[in-house]
Every structure is written in C-alpha cells, then in structure tokens.
C-alpha cells in the first residue's frame, strides 16, 4: 500500500468512527421520555462496554481456560503447564530473572528518584534538571535498549572501544567485559535500562508530593534543631510514604509486563529471558499455546495483588 493510500485508510477510519458516533447521538438526542433516557445512556456507554467485553473480558477468560490445555489447545492437561513453569529448568531461570527485575527495578528507581527529587528541590535549575532525568520516559523501550546496547558495546581489550562502559573499564586499566553475554550479571545490566527509564517517573511523582508537605511542619522541625538528614528521615519520608508506595507498586506492575528490553537486546538468549518475554517465545516461536497462556495467567496472578494494593493506597492518597 502506498503512503497516500495508508493516509486515506486512516482518514476513512476516523471519519467512519465520527459519523457513527454522530448518528447515534443525533438519533437519541430528541428522546426525553424514560425509555429515551435509557436509550441515550446506552448510546453513550455501549460502545465502550462492548469493546471491553469482547476485547478484554472474553479473551482473558479464554486464556485462563486455554492454559489448562496442551500445546495445540486440544488435549486437556489440567495444571501441567503451571507445573512446567515451576519445575522445568529453563522456566525456573525465567522465574529467577523475573524476580530480580521485579525486586530491583522498583526499589532502585524509587530510591534514586527520591534522592534526586530532594537534591534538586527548589534549586535554581530544577526545571532543567528534571527534564534531563525525565526525558527517557518519552523514549520507547526499543529506543532505550538500542541506546544502552551501544553503551555496552564490547570489543577486544586491545582495540579502541566504542562503548562508553568498556571505554571506562579500559581507562581504569581493567579488561573489557561482555555486559550482555555473561550470565548471570547480564540480567543486571538489562535491569539498569529499565531503571534508567523509570527514575523519571518516580522523581516526578515524589517531587510533587515533597512540594505538598506543609511548610509549618518543616519549620517546626527546624525550630527543634533537626538537621537536614533528620528532616529527611523523620519529616520528608513519612510525609510522602503513600506516594512512595504508589510509585513502587506502579513500577513493579510496569516491570512485570515489560518485554521489549529483553527482546531487543539479547532476544532472551544468554539466560536473560523474563516471564513477559517467555510468553511471547512460547507462543510465537515454540507454538506452545498451553504454556504461553499459562505464563500469561501467571503474570495476571502476580500483577493482581500489586494492582489491588496500589489502588487502595491511591484511594488513601486521594482521601487526604
């Protein structure tokens, strides 16, 4: 399809969509009776409800059902796929890596984001300093992966290095290192990529809640002779505790679902795969539908309690 044709298709899609919406609204506009009210409500709500029902609810239920079947989806195998996830050595490695990601990314990102937010709070360059850290948030994980693959570029120690990381190692007189190849530390170097992206998010949210701490609280602490460090520990951190929890849980959820980094940097090789990527591999490469859906359901089960906790914390935050 040519460029022009693609744009025409795009405009057709948007135009058709708006035409349908307009017709629905106009058709129900004149109704003022009780049934009219109902028809209007249906016109407003049904498009969303139908899409969510067909596109989310039905597929999620089907996936849970399919995870009890074999590769092709024909033979019932009970919980065998789940057993595979927790016993097969390849899958256990995936679980180990996923655990490393889910523990490190939220904690380290939040810690760095918090420290940075405090350091630059009300400084002269605050806006600029924030933009620098925040910029990676606008970049796709594919783009971020390529940026970091270049940082990690490996060459023999005798050659001129083109990757910053190995250039630094060489400058310090050390051997160059295969950052993406050497298990198990390669997972750690991939984790750095997502931390690099997520710190901006943590900093933004935490910075906003630091600014919301009432001035008189800090003034009181100061009158009591609290040092900067004491203020940080006894005033700042407790005051922004709910935001801290929201940030940590939100980043955990993102981390559990992120598959782009592993796919772009190592393709899951060298023992770096994680659940979200393994799902993709099992379905699209190994054609094992049962195992793939079981992994997806496992992600679902892992995400669910974090989301529920996250939402409850957010409610508290809003209520204040």
């Amino acid at each position, binding site marked *: 399809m040519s*460029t022009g044709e693609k744009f025409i298709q795009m405009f057709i899609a948007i135009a058709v969509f*708006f035409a349908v919406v307009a017709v629905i609204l106009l058709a129900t506009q004149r109704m003022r009776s009780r049934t009219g009210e109902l028809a209007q409500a249906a016109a407003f*709500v049904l498009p969303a409800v139908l*899409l969510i029902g067909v596109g*989310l609810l039905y597929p999620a239920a089907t996936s849970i059902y399919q995870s009890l079947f074999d590769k092709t989806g024909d033979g019932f195998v009970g919980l065998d796929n789940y057993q595979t996830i927790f016993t097969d050595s390849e899958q256990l490695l995936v679980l180990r890596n996923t655990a490393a990601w889910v523990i490190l990314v939220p904690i380290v990102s939040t810690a760095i984001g918090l420290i940075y937010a405090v350091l630059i709070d009300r400084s002269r360059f605050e806006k600029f300093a924030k933009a620098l850290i925040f910029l990676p948030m606008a*970049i*796709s994980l*594919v783009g971020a992966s390529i940026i970091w693959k270049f940082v990690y570029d490996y060459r023999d120690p005798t050659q001129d290095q083109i990757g910053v990381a190995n250039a630094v190692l060489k400058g310090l007189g050390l051997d160059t290192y295969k950052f993406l190849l050497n298990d198990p530390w390669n997972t750690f170097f991939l984790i750095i990529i997502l931390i690099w992206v997520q710190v901006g998010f943590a900093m933004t949210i935490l910075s906003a809640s630091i600014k919301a701490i009432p001035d008189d609280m800090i003034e009181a602490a100061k009158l009591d002779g609290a040092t900067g460090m004491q203020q940080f520990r006894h005033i700042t951190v407790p005051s922004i505790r709910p935001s801290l929890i929201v940030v940590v849980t939100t980043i955990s959820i993102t981390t559990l679902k992120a598959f782009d980094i592993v796919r772009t940097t190592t393709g899951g090789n060298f023992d770096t795969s994680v659940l979200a990527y393994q799902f993709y591999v099992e379905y699209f490469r190994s054609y094992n539908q049962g195992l793939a859906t079981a992994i997806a359901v496992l992600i679902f089960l892992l995400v669910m309690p974090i989301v*529920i906790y996250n939402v409850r914390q957010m409610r508290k935050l809003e209520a204040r």
Partner: protein
Amino acid sequence: MTTTNPDLGALETDAPGPEPVSTSAHRALTSPWASIAAVVIAVLWTIPTLGLFITSFRPESDITSSGWWKIFTNPSFTMSNYDQVLHGSDTKLTTYFVNSIVITLPAVIIPISIATLAAYAFVWMKFPGRDLLFVAIFALQIVPIQVTLIPLLKLYVHPPLNLMPLAGPDAPGGGFYTLWLSHTIFALPLAIYLLHNFMSQIPGELIESARVDGAGHVQIFTRIMLPLMAPAIAAFGILQFLWVWNDLLVAITFGSPTTFPLTARLAELSGTRGNDWFLLSAGAFVSLVIPLIVFLSLQRYFVRGLLAGSVKG
C-alpha cells in the same frame, strides 16, 4: 492505574514563589556533596542518549574505529546515516514512520472519544446497573494485555458469525484495523476511569441548571463538558499517544511487516544488523523525534497525565 490528585500537576510547574519556609530545610541538606551527587546523576542519565545522538551524525568509518567522545577532539559530521536509514532500500524507515503515524492517530482519537462518552454517562446519567458496570470496568484494569493477546488474535483471524476477518492477506484497511481496535480496547478501562475521576469534580449544579434550561445530554456533553474536560483529555491523549507510538508488543502481535511501526522495524534491525551502529543510531533518533517533540512542547500536560495515571493493560 495510578491516580493521585490531579491538582498536583499545578505544583509541578510552579515557579519558586516568595522565599518558602522549607528553603532553609533544603539548604540544610544542600552540602556541596549533595550538589555533586545531583550533577553526577544528571550526567549519568544523559550520557547514553547523548552518545548515540552524536554517533548518528558521525561517518560510518569513524563510528567503527573510535568512540563518539573523540568527536570533541576530531570533529566530523555527516547526514548520510539519516539519508540512508530513511531512504536506503534495505531500511526505508520513511515507510515505517508513515505506519507509526497511521497507527497512532486513530488509536488516540477513537478510544478517547469513546471513553469520554462513557465517562459522561457513568457520572451524569442514570441507568440500571450503572455502578456495577463502572466497578467492573475499573476492575478490568488489572488484566495484563498478555492474557488477552492470543484469544484476541484468533478473533481477528476467525471471527464468529461469518464476519469479515480483520487480519490476514485480505484484511480491510491494509490490516491497520486490528491495531486500531486493539489499542482502543486496551486504552478504554484506564481512560474511562481517569476521565470519570476528572468529570466527577465538575460541579453538579452546572449540569442541573443546564438541564433546567432544557438542554439535553448531547448538548451538555458537547457544549459544556468537552470544553471543561479539555485539559484532562489532552493529558490522557498525550499518554496514550506515547504508549501507542512506543508500543512494540501490540504491533508485532497483531501487525504484519506491511503495517509495522518504527519500533517493530527498529527491533528487527537491532537483531539483524546489530553492529551497524550508523544505521541503528540514526534509526533510533528517527523513532525518538516525534515523542521528544511532543514531550518537550507539552511537558505540562504530560506531567499532569502522569500524575493522574501511568500504567495500563
């Protein structure tokens, strides 16, 4: 998913006002070491992007023979990397750039329109099962998109009731409908929830008096609600824009090589031409330029959207 008070967004961009009390607290923390730490973090965060950016303007022979930091002692620049990555027959990123635009615009406009309508009904209309339905949609935010992909793909390929398949060689609209629909579906729960939150903050008297004056829901929606909701819609619109533009999973699951966006093509190049940094560096920045422009020009809304909600599907 995350929702904090949207008003926090205002704090974000506030200029430092009259000497605040807490400045003294801040000063207490600000030792020279603290400033150094801040600068170190800022530099560490910037170097990776800067390195690849500089690399994208260096001649291929320079890229492979020396580090990008050598440009400061031995400057030489070229645009040929960009020329090749955009128009070269083996990369042709212009094609994928077009795909990204064609995928993204409807995938932002359509879900926001549907979600605004639904949110309006959930806040201002009365119908049986309203609260139950809203809670159900709210709860469905916990479904990770991985759980939905395989059954959804099957629905597109073999739809029930002899409907037209949306995927495959004879797909309508060049195969873009699967992407538009999927992005729309995945955006809806969060969009409805956030817009519902914003909308319920609008005073009810405003709506009541309009009703008394004889305005119908459609008029209230288009004349009163849409203008009032513009900032919230913009905030969510930017988030959705960045999600769709930067998405890889939905694109490679439901798309085909003819509908791949930049991210999918770039991921491919990273696999097949992983050491051709003259291509990868320029390619990466071709894919980054639009989100960066959006980010830099609409940062205010972006931050507000982020404070309101950041995780979906």
